[in-house]
């Protein structure tokens, strides 16, 4: 009985802790959702579901559809002319729970910092998190769903969002 009680407590504590970690990123998005220095974009799963049903003869679109059909959400937080890009980058960096996300890519070029993390469940990538920090620019982008790293870079062509071009780097790293 005691064992059952403690294991239940342990499970509840584990679940709360996992939610809290995930919430850290969500809270970061929410914190700046109404800040006018930022552009905020949220694409709901429903749009991805609808877009996946659109069939055309276009080869490019069909490639994108392959990626889109497994996605369940996109959140973007962009600021392209701010003074504290690097401090925001560092603040966001601290919010990413290291035990939950595994680092996929790190690039540091002059004053530009790019980091990409993935959150895996078995062999499936459930979330891709992209963080870009420059002195005057900040990008936080989160894809959720069933993500194929080989195909996700195709989205950089259609997403008219600052920082999305960094997704191309995944392709470069993979090959």
């Amino acid at each position, binding site marked *: 009985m005691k064992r059952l009680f403690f294991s239940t407590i342990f499970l509840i504590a584990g679940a709360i802790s996992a939610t809290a970690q995930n919430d850290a990123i969500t809270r970061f998005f929410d914190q700046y*959702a*109404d800040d*006018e220095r930022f*552009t*905020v*974009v*949220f*694409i*709901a799963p*429903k*749009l991805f579901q*609808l*877009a996946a*049903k*659109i*069939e*055309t*003869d*276009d*080869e*490019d*679109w069909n490639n*994108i559809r392959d990626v*889109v059909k497994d996605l369940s959400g996109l959140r*973007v937080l*962009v600021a*392209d002319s701010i003074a504290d890009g690097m401090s925001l980058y560092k603040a966001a960096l601290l919010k990413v729970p290291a035990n939950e996300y595994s680092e996929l890519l790190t690039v540091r070029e002059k004053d530009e910092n790019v980091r990409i993390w993935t959150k895996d469940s078995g062999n499936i990538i459930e979330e891709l998190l992209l963080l870009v920090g420059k002195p005057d620019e900040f990008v936080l982008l989160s894809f959720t769903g069933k993500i194929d790293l080989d195909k996700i870079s195709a*989205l950089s*062509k*259609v*997403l*008219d*969002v*600052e920082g999305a071009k960094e997704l191309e780097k995944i392709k470069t790293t993979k090959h």
Partner: protein
Amino acid sequence: MSTMKIIYFLTAFLLTINVLQAQDYGLYWKYKDYNGAIAVSIPRWASTIATAFVEERDDRKLLRKIHKTRVLFFEEESPFTDRDMKRFVKKSKRRGLDELVTVRTEKTHVRILAKSKGNTIKKVVVLFCSSEGAGLVSLKGKFRLDEINKVIEKSRKEGKKKDGSPNIPDILKVPVIRA
């Protein structure tokens, strides 16, 4: 007896008003008579008549699917308050509309919501609000995704790039506006 009749009449009247307002979650009915408002409500028969002036068969078919269109537009400033926006989203979710896209850049908010069942889109609502104006477009009908595919396919063929490369449907291009 007459008092009872009045009560019944008032109850029926209030319920009717409530149902009418519910169609566009209060915003249209609240602001349509405001100073500077451009409010248009197009019933189904008007859309059907309008099909007579459309040349393409597919476009005509799609236009016939529109049951009701409502447009509310403010050119100079937005009368919508934050409370209005929050209530709008809350009410629309309660009535089965899913939020598809939300974009906020500086003082501009854009929300696109839709109600769908299987492969049919039953309602699309676009709400935008900025310091320079605001608007609400509500489209009620029965649009099958294969019909939308046809229109996209047609516009893709017509709007081919100069270098001959195929155009990707713009559905995923997020409308980020920058100053």
